[in-house]
């Protein structure tokens, strides 16, 4: 359980520094099961910051979303830092961005929160349908205490947490400047159960499954926008000449988009699950990401977002990479 007062103190201290532009964190959302990202520009703003199991967003997208307008003559660039409140998985995203040199380490102040798992808003909404008043969710050992309309219910964590939290190996942020609360050690292990099961299916069954899923895709690119690692200045789907992916929504274009999205995250995806959470059509995008993650672990013994000093997976090689055929 994270002490909100401690968090607010830390945010206040950070934003009081002269070299910090703003701090991104979570605040209570306007309705239902939501929290929203919020910004603190002044020390007073820190009072609205919270952390609860409802804080599902990955805020490490914000330093990358920063707009850099062209400077006027004689104008100095803004060199101030950005503060980010991160959970374990979010910190891996920052590590990965640092590894790719998308961001300088001294451009961010990281406020780390050890997290024991967040709530899957879709699962919670199914449990309490149509609820629009504010709901409180508290962490209580292996249960969540959900308060709806003044009544508190205790629900087993395993019923509410998303799949990514069930196998989370890094509950404590890998990289942080300030840590709120105590470090947590994970006893969970990524076993790729779903991936292994799916692999056993025949090609025909697999295609039947994915055809149904990709047929739903409306190509809103929410998965891309929510992803902390999709920060290309111009995404390949927005390119017009050459136009790799057509605008039309049909099965072959949808397949191409989803495949390319997954491939562009090969060796970079840190498994925060934002793509799947933000998908309005409930396409299980994490299954693709996990599949690649598993193959990379097996073939190249590499894990994304753990070591900022390492070289990116696809930018290096080892002479003893596994071969499928004899030369």
């Amino acid at each position: 359980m994270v002490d909100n007062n401690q968090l607010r103190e830390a945010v206040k201290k950070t934003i009081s520094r002269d070299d910090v532009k703003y701090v991104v964190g979570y605040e209570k959302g306007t309705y239902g099961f939501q929290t929203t990202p919020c910004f603190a520009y002044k020390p007073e703003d820190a009072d609205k910051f919270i952390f609860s199991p409802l804080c599902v967003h990955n805020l490490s997208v914000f330093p990358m979303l920063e707009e850099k307008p062209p400077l006027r003559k004689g104008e100095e660039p803004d060199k101030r830092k950005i503060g980010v409140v991160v959970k374990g998985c979010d910190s891996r995203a920052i590590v990965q961005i640092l590894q790719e040199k998308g961001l300088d380490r001294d451009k961010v102040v990281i406020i780390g929160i050890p997290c024991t798992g967040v709530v899957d808003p879709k699962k919670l909404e199914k449990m309490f349908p149509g609820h629009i008043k504010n709901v409180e969710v508290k962490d209580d050992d292996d249960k969540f205490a959900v308060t709806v309309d003044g009544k508190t219910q205790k629900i087993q964590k395993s019923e509410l947490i998303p799949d990514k939290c069930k196998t989370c190996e890094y509950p404590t942020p890998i990289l942080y400047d300030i840590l709120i609360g105590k470090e947590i050690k994970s006893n969970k292990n990524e076993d790729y159960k779903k991936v292994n099961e799916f692999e056993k299916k025949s090609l025909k069954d697999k295609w039947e499954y994915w055809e149904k899923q990709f047929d739903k895709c409306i190509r809103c690119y929410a998965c891309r926008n929510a992803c902390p690692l999709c920060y290309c200045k111009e995404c390949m789907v927005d390119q017009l000449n050459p136009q790799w992916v057509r605008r039309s929504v049909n099965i072959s274009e949808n397949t191409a988009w989803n495949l390319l999205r997954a491939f562009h995250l090969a060796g970079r995806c840190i498994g925060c699950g934002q793509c799947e959470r933000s998908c309005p059509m409930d396409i299980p995008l994490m299954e693709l990401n996990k599949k690649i993650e598993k193959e990379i672990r097996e073939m190249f013994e590499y894990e994304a977002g753990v070591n900022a000093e390492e070289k990116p997976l696809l930018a290096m090689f080892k002479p003893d990479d596994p071969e499928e055929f004899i030369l």
Partner: protein
Amino acid sequence: MTEKFEPNIIGFLCNWCSYAGADLAGTSRIKYPPNIKSIRVMCSGRVDPVFILEALKKGADGVLVAGCHPGDCHYQSGNYKTNRRIKLLKKLLGELAIDPDRVKFEYVSASEGQKFASVVTEFVDELKKMGPNPLKEVKV
């Protein structure tokens, strides 16, 4: 019907080895099926997975990427990096039920005209067994 099916293959051939290998196959008058349309790239490392997907989407039944043997790359390490990339792409295609064997990565050096011919022949035979590519663009 299946006997009449002639697969379309797009070949991305590296300028320094495989393209010269294909050239050698031609000048030595080695026979191989005409199903392959070759595109010369400066290095197999130039082949972005986007190219492969675009080819499959536009109606190719198979894509062949050919580069120099390990250690022979004109740019030192291009072929090693492609190797990693193509391997991952194949795994992903397999997950999505597009037969991963539709994409092939081979090492063909400039002196291996015979190997180039046999690679293409084998690939065409395999693709004939697999049938047309399901990802082909739906024409509206």
